[in-house]
Structure formats: structure tokens, C-alpha cells
């Protein structure tokens, strides 16, 4: 049996949304930054049990620092959401609580994972201190570049979605 789930990836621009998806789907990475506009949609099928799989429809949205402006049509029928910020740029997480509030207002009652990406560029211990100091809690700290924790993000979401069905 195959179920299909729509996952939306949100966050400010340049935080690595496209790169995380590329790492997850194709297991590749590029240092070049190509700004995404609108939405790119890709699909990846994951096994959840013998004979059962889940087809993830990944909606990679144009980055924005004003989440209010996200087109509502993009969010229709979303099952899970991943909010990504860039651990090297405070501007992408300093208003995270306001950002997340907007996200949960627009997408209530669905699994939401908060991801700090680009951990390969910082010292993890210092990062954790910084996040603690700013009272920011994350589900995963990832690096699309090294692949660190990237699969875990999607696995966790798959598990949450699987439990929900």
C-alpha cells in the first residue's frame, strides 16, 4: 500500500531548503546558490514497513522573511511542515517564535519540525549555547552539505505522519 503525504519546507531565503531536499532525494549537494522562486515540487517514496511505502510530495517554497506573504494555495492539503533556519545567520532565526506562530496559524494541527541548517560552518557547542541563550529549540541541527542528520529529519516526519494515519 502506498500513501501520499504533502510536506512543505519553509524558511527565510538562502537557509538551505532546496539543498536539504536535494540531499534527501538525490544525496547530492552544490555550493552554488540558485534562488528558488515560487515552488518546486519533488517526490520521494520511502519504505515504512515491508510492502508499505509512503510517497512524500515535497513542496520547496520560495524563501521569505515575511511568512505572512506565503501564498495560501501552496499550503492546501499539507500534512507536515519543516521550518528551516540558517545557523550562521541570526536574521533567519532571531524572530523564530513569531515565524513559527504564523506557520502554526496557517497550518494548524500538523507535525512541524524546526531545523537549524549549515552546522558544518559552526562549532556545535557554541551553537547550542547560542540557541539556548535565545531560547530557541530545534528538532534537528543539520548540514545539507555533509548530510548530517538530514535523513533523520524526514524519517521523524514520516514516523509522525505514519502514526497519524
Amino acid at each position, binding site marked *: 500500500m502506498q500513501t*501520499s503525504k*504533502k510536506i512543505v519546507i519553509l524558511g527565510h531565503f*538562502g537557509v538551505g531548503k532546496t539543498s536539504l531536499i536535494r540531499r534527501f532525494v538525490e544525496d547530492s549537494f552544490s555550493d552554488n546558490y540558485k*534562488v528558488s522562486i*515560487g515552488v518546486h*515540487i519533488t517526490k520521494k517514496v520511502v519504505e515504512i514497513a515491508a510492502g508499505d511505502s509512503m510517497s512524500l510530495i515535497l513542496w520547496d517554497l520560495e524563501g521569505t522573511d515575511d511568512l505572512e506573504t506565503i*501564498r495560501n494555495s501552496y499550503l492546501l492539503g499539507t500534512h507536515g511542515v519543516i521550518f528551516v533556519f540558517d545557523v550562521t*545567520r541570526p536574521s533567519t532565526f532571531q524572530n523564530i517564535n513569531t515565524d513559527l506562530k504564523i506557520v502554526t496559524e496557517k497550518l494548524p494541527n500538523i507535525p512541524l519540525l524546526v531545523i537549524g541548517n549549515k552546522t558544518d560552518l559552526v562549532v556545535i557547542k557554541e551553537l547550542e549555547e547560542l540557541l539556548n541563550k535565545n531560547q530557541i529549540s530545534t528538532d534537528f541541527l543539520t548540514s545539507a552539505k555533509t548530510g548530517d542528520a538530514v535523513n533523520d529529519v524526514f524519517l521523524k516526519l514520516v514516523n509522525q505522519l505514519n502514526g497519524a494515519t
Partner: protein
Amino acid sequence: MELLNKYKKSYTNNDIQFVFVNDSRVILESDQAFLKLTIGDFIYNTHPFFECLHALENTPEEETTFNCVHLNIHDKEYTTDIKIIKKIDGILLVLHNLTQHYLTYQSIAQSRNESIINGELIILKNSELEERERFKNSFIQNFSHELRNPLTNIISITNIIANTELTGEQKNMINFLRESNANLKLMLEDILSISMIASGKLQLRNKEFNIYELFNLLRFTYGAKAKEKGLEFTLTSDIKIPEYVEGDYLRIYQILTNLLDNAFKYTQDGSINFNIELNQKRANKVSLRFKISDTGIGIPQEKLATVFNSFTQLKTAEQQNGNGLGLAIVKGLLQQMESDIKVHSKLNRGSTFYFDIVLKYPLHPTIKPDIKEKKYKHKEEGKFKVLLVEDDIHLQTTLFKILINTEVFFVDLINDGAKVIEELVNNSYDIILMDINLPNLSGDKITHAIREFPFKNIKKIPIIGLTANAYEDDIKAYLKAGMNAVVPKPFDHDVLLKTMFKYLK
């Protein structure tokens, strides 16, 4: 309209495609305007975007538009606006190919985002550098302060030992020790100076002084040094230079001695000439040019740009001592005086360093000639009673010895800030020597309390602060709290005694 229809078709048709799917999402019809779809196929198989049709089932809207959707179909990417319209017999899809339009939009977004991110990263980088610089400077400052107390002890105890009866060999060793102490103290001061300059904490203290006396002092000191080293030293100055000027005597002295020491260090034979010219004398300001030339090893052309950097040292001088901060300090101090140091140099021929500074000069100097202190002033009867408030055991001993050796002091010691007032009420003191960092109550707070005291004999006792926080701001704060003077650690015992006698009657 036939003509128009024919042409209109060729311009619009290719960009707008109509597709009709039934309720099972099977493609029934497609005009194939720009996408070749397989009739009879599931539309989901065309592109995962179309899976959203499923979600739309439950929405009340008849029509939903998705802007800027990227569709990769048959290895080609289209950027489209897609309108999905519910009909009774199925779903009508209107796909608008806007690839060209969105390409322009993308390139605008690209440069906007890139420049915002770059801007952010530059700011971050700068603040990181500043933070590192700040950390470095405060580390150096704290560390140098920490070193002052033990160094003061070493210097003072060396002086005390030097004044006891010694064998010839011991005397040599003590001289060596004194020289090392002096070097260490100098280095410590240099490091402190450079980090204070770098962190902007150094403030100039402009005061009236006799510049001719400064010239005489330098002529004397460096004349002797030259004789010792077999060099020639001349100091010439324009006689039209006013005798009294206003400036930071200590810093000017520091600049000149740094430059002269440097000249001596790098010159093995020949001469060193120090020349002070008058550039201008106008209203109440003089501009002076200080020029120090040597016939030393010179500086290679490629090094000229970096000699004023911190921790830079010429290669040939590696065997010689010195930490290479001298010129950086000179440059920093001169910058504070709104001046700049310049250098000309020829390898193996020598170097000339010069700079101009503008100093005020009072038309009616207010300085009175120095009243020389007698060796040790005596109290009319008995000894001066000193209250020493200090918690560092080594400093206690050192200070105690310095004071007792003069034979004119009687010393009481307290190491707890909170007990000072009680002690003052029960005894009468001629002067208080007070450390600042004390347990329970800090020196400046005690001072403040004493100055507020209702009894005149206590309220007026001279208080001399002892501190390793030799910053302008700190010292000002201590004076403001009511201290009569502040002697920085490590202190020279002559300076300490001289300061004390100034306030003793």
C-alpha cells in the same frame, strides 16, 4: 477577424494550455499547447504537483490558482501559473507558461537575496573580529594587571635587599635582577599601552610642562648611553621653541624614548641625532618637528610598511631583546595626538623617523619651580602614623618594609575594608594607604564614607589609593570618591614616598 485570429493564435496558443481530467484524475483531453500529455494517463504521473488535486476535492472554492509552479516534464522545465477549475463533469486545468517572465523575476530575486546575505555575512564577520579584538585586549589588560602585584613585590624586595650589606658577587646578582625587573616592568607597560591604545581606553593627560627640561633629560640619559656604546649622540633644538608647552608629558616622553631606544638598538657604530625643529608658532600653538636619525642597519624597503605593526620585528634583531611593540606604541600614541610617524630608511645606511605635533603654549606659564623634597620629612614630634589597608600579604610586607625603613613612620595594618572606620574612630592617623580591591568594602567606597564622616579630624585624613587599575577612568573615579592621590601598582617606592610626603604636615 480571420486574419487576426490566425495571428493571435500563433502568439497566444503556445503559452496557454487547456487540459481536462475526469474525477478519477485521468486526462481526457489536452490541447497540447506546450506540454505533450498522454491522453488516458493519470495526471499524477505527469508531475507530482498534480497530486494537489486530491486536496482540492474538499475545498469549497470553485477555482484555485497556483502561481509560479515549476514543472519538469520530458526533461524540460516550465514555470507556470496553473488555474484549477471544478466542473460538473470533471476538472479543467489552465496552464499558463510564464517561463520567460519568471526568469526575469528569478534574476532579480537572485541578486537581491545574494546582496542581502552578503551584507549580513560582512556585518557578522566584522562583529566577530571586533569581539575577538575586544576579548584580546581585555585579556591582555587583565593579565597585565594580575602581573603587577607580584612584580611590585619583586621590585620592592630587590630594592630592599640592595640596601642591605652584600658581597661583591651578590651585588652583581642584584644588579642583574634589577635590570631584569626593569625590563619586565617596561615590557608589561608596553603591552598594557598597546592594548589600551587598541581598545581606545588610553586618554591623553595634557598638562603644562617645561620642554627644555625634557630635552635636557634626554640629552643626559642618551648621552651617557651613547658613551657606553661608543656612539655619538647629539640633541639640537630650535631656540625659538617656547620653554613651557601643554601636552601629555609622559606620553611624549614615551614616544621619544621608544624611538631613541630603537635607534640605539639598531645602531652599532656612527651616530644618533635628535633634532627638534619649530615648524610654526601661531596664536598660542606651536607645531614642532621631532626627528631622530641613526646610522644603523636600516630597514629593508619591503618592511617599511609593516614596522609600525604590533609584534613585528626586524629579522636581524632576533638575537637582541625587545618585544617589537615600541614602534606600534609610538604610532598609536601619535595617532591620539592627531599626528603620524614617518620613516625614511636606507639599508645599512640608517633610518630617520620623524613626526610633527602641535602643542599649546601658555603665554604666562603657571608652573612654579619644583620644590625639592628633603630626604625624609620628620613629624615635629614622634612618627607619622600610617594606616595601611591592604589584603595582599606580599604587598603588606613590602609596603611595611618600605615605610619602616624610612624610620619616620609608624604603621598599622588592616585587611578588611569593613573595619576601617572603626579603626579610625579609635586611633588617630596622619595618612591612609588604601588598596582598592578589598574584601567586604572597596577602597573607593570606604573613602567616600570617610569623606562623609561628621568629625573633621577623620574626614580630612589624606588618603592615597593603591591600585593596579591604572585607567584614566578608574583613577578619576577614585579621586572623585575623595582620594587625594592614586599611586599605580607596581609602584616605585620613591614615587610612593614622595606622594605621601606631599600630603603630610
